[in-house]
């Protein structure tokens, strides 16, 4: 078996006395959709922040696409093909929807020390951005100022921006957070359509989405990987039921 696309070994991060990530090992193979689930406070978002480079781990290594990226900055990781969406929507609120995605494409289209030609008339940025918006279902909203979008649409834009960087691995932090029934069904269908075209690491609370989309599931509790396996195995795992899934049944 070839080396995984993402290979995390012994990742550790603590804030004061609180150990958010505790010697975590995690592997994501190319092409798979890998879900990370766990109760609130299990350290899922902290994990993503360390993978994407917003946080620096105290110990451990992160290998991505064959290279050690543990010491790299967030932009450097993005340029290597690691994209992240944020749990709390993080978009450019003053820019139009199309501008948002065009910027993500621009970031990967050589340096931006280009001070003269109007970027908003640059077909090399605008056309692919428009195509991505069509894909995520925001085609008709391209010229709307992003801050004026409905919540569900902002979540879609969040994914569109990540896709604009043409990632090898997409880190999705609760893409369905705060979404209503219809929006969340649409997002689930969209993520399903991404399967196979893009490797995904999905952090999500919506168990229905997780068990529909994921090829493998890692269960995190107190910063550690409690179990890892196919959805059916995880569902059957007694420790997981006790630690986590049992709580969900009543919901």
């Amino acid at each position: 078996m070839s080396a995984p696309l993402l290979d995390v070994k012994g990742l550790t991060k603590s804030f004061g006395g609180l150990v958010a990530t505790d010697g975590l090992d995690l592997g994501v193979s190319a092409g798979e959709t890998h879900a990370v689930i766990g109760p609130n406070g299990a350290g899922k978002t902290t994990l993503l922040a360390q993978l994407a480079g917003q946080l620096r781990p105290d110990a451990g290594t992160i290998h991505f696409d064959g290279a050690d990226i543990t010491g790299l900055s967030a932009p450097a990781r993005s340029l290597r093909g690691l994209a992240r969406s944020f749990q709390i929507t993080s978009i450019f609120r003053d820019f139009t929807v199309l501008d948002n995605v065009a910027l993500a494409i621009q970031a990967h289209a050589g340096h931006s020390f280009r001070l003269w030609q109007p970027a908003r008339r640059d077909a090399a940025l605008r056309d692919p951005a428009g195509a991505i918006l069509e894909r995520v279902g925001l085609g008709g909203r391209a010229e709307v100022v992003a801050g004026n979008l409905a919540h569900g649409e902002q979540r879609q834009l969040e994914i569109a921006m990540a896709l604009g960087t043409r990632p090898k691995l997409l880190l999705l932090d609760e893409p369905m957070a705060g979404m209503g029934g219809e929006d969340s069904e649409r997002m689930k269908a969209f993520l399903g359509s991404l399967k196979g075209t893009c490797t995904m690491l999905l952090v999500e609370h919506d168990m229905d989405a997780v068990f529909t989309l994921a090829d493998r599931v890692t269960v995190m509790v107190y910063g550690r990987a409690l179990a890892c396996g196919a959805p059916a195995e995880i569902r059957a795992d007694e420790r997981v039921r006790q630690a986590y899934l049992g709580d969900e049944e009543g919901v």
Partner: protein
Amino acid sequence: MSAMNLRRWLTALCLALFALVPVVAGVFGQPFLLDIFDRIMIISIAAVSLNLIMGYGGMISFGHAAYLGIGAYSIGIPAYYGYYDAALQLPLAIAASALFALVTGYICLRTRGVYFIMITLAFAQMAYFAFISVEEYGGDDGLVIEARSRVPAGVVDLESNVQLYYVVFAVLVGALYLVHRIVNSRFGLVIQGAKDNDERMRAIGFNTFRYRLTCYVIAGAMCGLAGWLLGNFNNFFSPEMIAWTRSGELIFMVVLGGMGSVFGPVLGTVAFIVLEEVLSGFTIYWELIFGAFLILVVVFVRGGLMGMIAKFERPRP
């Protein structure tokens, strides 16, 4: 596009009026008009450059007047030693300003918000006290510059007030056009994106520090150019030019005119200097009225004077 018309017309109208001032001043025998508008345009260039980093880049510099001083001293110090050649003074003004911006920006841009404001102020104060402490160049009192920058005969003669005026005018138009191009370019979008959401910019692959530092250096160099013009216009340089209150005034002008619109700072400067002239003729307490006016504009008109004008335009389709 039609929604932009009013602001475009106003910009064209203002620039046309600026261009006509020497004619009017000549016909009506009012040379002080030339002086006021010279000053307005020179300070406008400084405000336009500040707006590039502050309005578009979110970098609120409380030390931007330092570059006016550096530009002026780049004439004054060579002139003190008998070097009047513009071919020396002008590149010196721009290079010295750019270098000051590069060194201080490298440090300032590691901070954000209030810390950024305070550290830019601190650097400007360092420059201020450095200029004061050098007795050779007049210290506190500054020095008179014996002659304006010398340009090869046949090009322009800066000793002519009208010719200097049109040089200032040309530089202002050039600065406005440059900023207009920059803010709409790829580079400009990166700067504005970093103002809006720096973490996101980094997450999609931009090393924003480099772009912001470059922007900071461009703005510094542009303001240094304004300082070169100011020194030539005043025939005088002193540390007072870069006192922190001067930097504060520049911020006022930008906010008053409208942050994040290319021409806004020019309107702000016009309003600031004209009001200053008019009100100070009425009462010695003019600053009190002036302060109240500024507060009203900031509180009630988001986007400054340009924002107010934008409200009269037809809404975007």
